């Protein structure tokens, strides 16, 4: 049996860094493609990662995204420092958003981000503390 391959990469995400918004996810997507993951799986992981990354850029002060590839799944973990989400259940509803006009002008803030992450993930956990930040754990099975 060959050794179990494992790939881990961490990305730093800057809040309000609109110029680089989405860069971590596009880089991660290119890496997943190089590893040879199935395109349909990459697509779901990339969309979930991108939505989560955009949330950090749009709403938090800063954050970290870690992508971990095991022989059975892709795990995407995001930890941000920010205001947190007061009502997670409400934030999970399609169409609910606290986005500013500036965010909407960039093409985001439709209130679809978190539901779309959940839709693309095989498992999704969100934990938020008001005034501290939000942690997302996303798993996409290979």
């Amino acid at each position, binding site marked *: 049996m060959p050794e179990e391959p494992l790939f881990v990469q961490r990305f730093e995400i800057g809040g309000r860094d609109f110029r680089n918004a989405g860069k971590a996810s596009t880089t991660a997507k290119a890496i997943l493609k190089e*590893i040879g993951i199935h395109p349909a*799986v990459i697509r779901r992981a990339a969309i979930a990662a991108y939505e989560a990354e955009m949330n950090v850029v749009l709403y938090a002060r800063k954050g970290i995204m870690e992508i971990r590839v095991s022989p059975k799944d892709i795990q995407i973990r995001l930890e941000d420092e920010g205001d947190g989400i007061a009502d997670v259940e409400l934030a999970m509803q399609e169409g609910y958003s606290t986005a500013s006009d500036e965010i909407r002008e960039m093409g985001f803030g439709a209130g679809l981000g978190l539901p779309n992450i959940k839709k693309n993930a095989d498992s999704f956990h969100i934990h938020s503390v008001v005034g501290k930040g939000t942690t997302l754990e996303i798993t996409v099975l290979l």
Partner: protein
Amino acid sequence: MKLEVVREILDCRVITGDDRLDEEVGVGCGADLMSDVLAFIKPNALLLTGLSNVQSVRTADIAGIKAIVYVRGKRPDKEAIELAKEKGIVLLATKLLMYESCGKLYQHGLRGGSELEGGSSDAGRTPLRSTL
């Protein structure tokens, strides 16, 4: 539908990717909100949008969109064009409005995402073998 045909129907200017106009797109999606694109897009799509910043191309790359048509005479900014070149995404521009652009392509047979087999946008949900 070949991108060359899209270019003809919408009288597009090719911003980048004129060597790839023989490639095919299977479905069309018109949206200015990238959140909507990410929630509803299908693989191998053509995106029609009025959002001309770099996020249009980043979203396209993430969602596996082959080509973008900027409508209403919008021009993508320099950063968007550079990223499209790097990622191999074809950028086209038309003076037509969103409604007219989508209508013309639909009339010529380019269907929308909800009409494709399966309907929902989460392709590839079935467990796939590990390719590691």
